[in-house]
């Protein structure tokens, strides 16, 4: 039958990535570019983009994610969604099975709690726990309650069954703004809360926690972490503070486009002065780039176009992504410079090029000039002689005339 042939097999229909891209108006080319970019952002070799692409396209690989909100402003979720700028990133949310998120789920109340319970039962030991916001330790955590449960209770209930945890944002990483002095709720990050509450995985091993600090955390760092997990089936390498080294491996200062001005001691002294308008280093205005580890200079921030990240638009870095810096140091306090001398890999402000005068060149120039002078003076002498001759002959001529 002709009609049967033209229609695709019903079992082959499904929420394919290609259809999703089509619906969202994203070209295949754009999607591949995104894949390449995100592969680079993860610090993976270029050749692995094929694997990343495969991971993106495998819809059955969707890991379950349970997303908990504690003491926070939901800025991390907002920046991830960025309702004004939907792009491939929102699509990634479709690649994970976000079974529970207070912000994003349609269900509310008991219905929501039931979804959480069901997902927990179904995905024991499989799901990724994402925590946004800090845990108030004072008074047993009564300052933050969801469904009448404190964060501690929720963590005791959920965390032991997670495969891994991601602490998104500075609040979940180490307390964030709530932990700023005097820290009335004794807010701490996820890792510390787990330690202090003695929460471990059901099998007795420690729950791995990946910190993605930032206020808000750069959505690309979450996407990269998720994709890393999807591609390689393991968690990315982290530093001593639990941050993925692909994103938090270098100081902002080291990748900053204004770094050459720092090395040349050209500083903006106050907002709007000559140096500030010239785009000089913001260190003296309190830039925390020299002590903050993040990839903002490389991938920028806010995703609204070229050179838009705090330092790029002329404001000193606040150090939001660094423990003990953002929300702990004053905005315009000068930072501790961790690396004073630049890497030898950085280009200088003014590259010195060859092409100056050499001894040989000076000698040749001198010889040519000297030779020219010798020739000119020689001609002058001969001319002078001729001049004298004509003068005498003219004189003798007039003499002759006089004599006649």
């Amino acid at each position, binding site marked *: 039958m002709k009609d049967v042939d033209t229609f695709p097999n019903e079992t082959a229909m499904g929420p394919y990535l290609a259809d999703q891209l089509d619906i969202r108006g994203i070209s295949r080319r754009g999607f591949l570019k995104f894949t390449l970019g995100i592969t680079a952002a993860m610090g993976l070799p270029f050749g692995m983009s094929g694997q990343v692409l495969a991971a993106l396209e495998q819809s059955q690989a969707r890991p379950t994610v349970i997303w908990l909100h504690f003491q926070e402003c939901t800025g991390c979720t907002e920046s991830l969604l960025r309702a004004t700028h939907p792009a491939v990133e929102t699509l990634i949310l479709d690649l994970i099975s976000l079974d529970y998120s207070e912000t994003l789920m349609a269900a509310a109340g008991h219905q929501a709690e039931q979804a959480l319970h069901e997902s927990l039962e179904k995905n024991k030991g499989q799901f990724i726990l994402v925590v946004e916001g800090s845990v108030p330790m004072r008074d047993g955590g009564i300052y933050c309650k969801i469904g009448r449960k404190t964060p501690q209770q929720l963590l005791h209930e959920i965390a032991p069954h997670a495969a891994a945890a991601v602490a998104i944002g500075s609040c979940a990483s180490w307390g964030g703004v709530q932990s700023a002095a005097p820290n009335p709720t004794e807010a701490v990050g996820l890792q510390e809360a787990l330690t202090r509450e003695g929460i471990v995985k059901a099998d007795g091993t420690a729950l791995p926690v990946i910190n993605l600090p930032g206020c808000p955390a750069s959505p690309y760092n979450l996407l990269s972490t998720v994709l890393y997990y999807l591609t390689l089936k393991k968690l990315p390498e982290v530093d001593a503070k639990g941050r993925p080294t692909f994103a938090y491996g270098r100081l902002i200062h080291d990748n900053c486009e204004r770094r050459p001005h720092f090395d040349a001691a050209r500083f903006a002294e106050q907002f709007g002065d000559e140096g500030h308008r010239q785009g000089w280093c913001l260190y003296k205005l309190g830039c925390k780039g020299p002590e903050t580890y993040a990839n903002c200079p490389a991938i920028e921030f806010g995703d609204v176009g070229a050179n838009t990240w705090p330092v790029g638009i002329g404001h000193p870095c606040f150090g939001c992504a660094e423990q003990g810096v953002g929300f702990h140091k004053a905005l315009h306090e000068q930072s501790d410079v961790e690396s004073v001398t630049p890497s030898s890999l950085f280009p200088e402000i003014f590259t010195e*090029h060859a*092409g100056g005068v050499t001894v040989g060149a000076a000698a040749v120039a001198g010889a040519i000039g000297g030779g020219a002078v010798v020739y000119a003076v020689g001609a002058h002498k001969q001319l002078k002689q*001729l001049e004298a001759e004509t003068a005498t002959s003219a004189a003798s001529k007039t003499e002759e005339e006089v004599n006649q």
Partner: protein
Amino acid sequence: MTEVYRPVGGRLLTRQFYFMGFLALIAGYFIIRRFIFGIGDVSHLSDGYPWGMWITYDVVTGTAIACGGYAMALLVYVFNRGQFHPIIRVALLTSVFGYTLAGISIVIDVGRYWQLYNVFLPQYANLNSVMLEVALCVTLYTLVLWIEFSPAILEAMKANRLLRQLRHVLFFFIGLGILLPTMHQSSLGSLLIIAGYKVHPLWLTNIIPLLFLITAIAMGYGMVVFESLYASVNLKRELETDMLSRIGAVIPWLLILYLVLRIGDLAMTGNLVALTRPGPEPFLFAAEMALFLFAIVTLLNRKLRERPTVLFWSALAVVLAGALYRFDAFMIAYNPGAGWHYFPGVGEMLITLGIVAIEVMAYLFFVKKTPILAMHRPHPA
């Protein structure tokens, strides 16, 4: 045009000629190196200073010095001063080789010389480009110069039939030979307008094309005078002081016009303040002015300009002043930004020196073998 041109004759292979040949051989060695190992091997040219010695001297200054033919043609044919006609062939001779060798040095200077022919393909022509104007105009003028100069060669070859035919069309080429340099000598200045702030404010002006044109004409006259005196001394010919001093008398008025325009423009644009800024530029400017003023003062004075020695030095001053003006604008007071340095390399200078040597050799060859110099009318006894 009753004068008679005669070959000077005499031995061609003199010691000086061998010396020039030696210089040309050295240049040949470096030119071969340039074509095997590239421009970087012999020169100090860089991305900051893509125009160095070769463009500044061989092309910009070289063609201005070679403006003798143009300047004399202006005087003879436009202002109808037939009395200067005897000197026109020798002026054309220097022009022919000045321009031809400038063209050759472009081939040496351009990085991808095998692409040069594209300049002449109309489908690639960018009609808004000053560079295109210069390239086409200089090439065309070089051809025109050879046609203008060809009677001397044809006479030496005794190709009388061809000579007669040529005489019928020569007026057209003489006309072209006046039009074309007017176009490209000014365009050589226009090249710097594009360079913008890289050129020091004392040299950068929108009237730079006019300034380049005026100085090129003055340098042309200066060179004719200088060359005639120098040749008289070295080829043991009688001095043409009378005619030369009359040519020399034209120069100061050109230079006065130039100075009024240049300083007036600097005053009007307010760039005269740049004279008070530190650095070598104000001194270079002063040196240029001193040379120009020396030539003006000496050549305005009739008594002085009739003395061959004074005429010699003031003609040289005009040429040097114009050359310094071009060197300053293109190289010395040209600043592409911090970190860039330029001083011509050894090979670079020796190639230029060799090109000058070839010009001198060509001059000697043609003057001795073909009818270039006018025979002196017998002195009234």
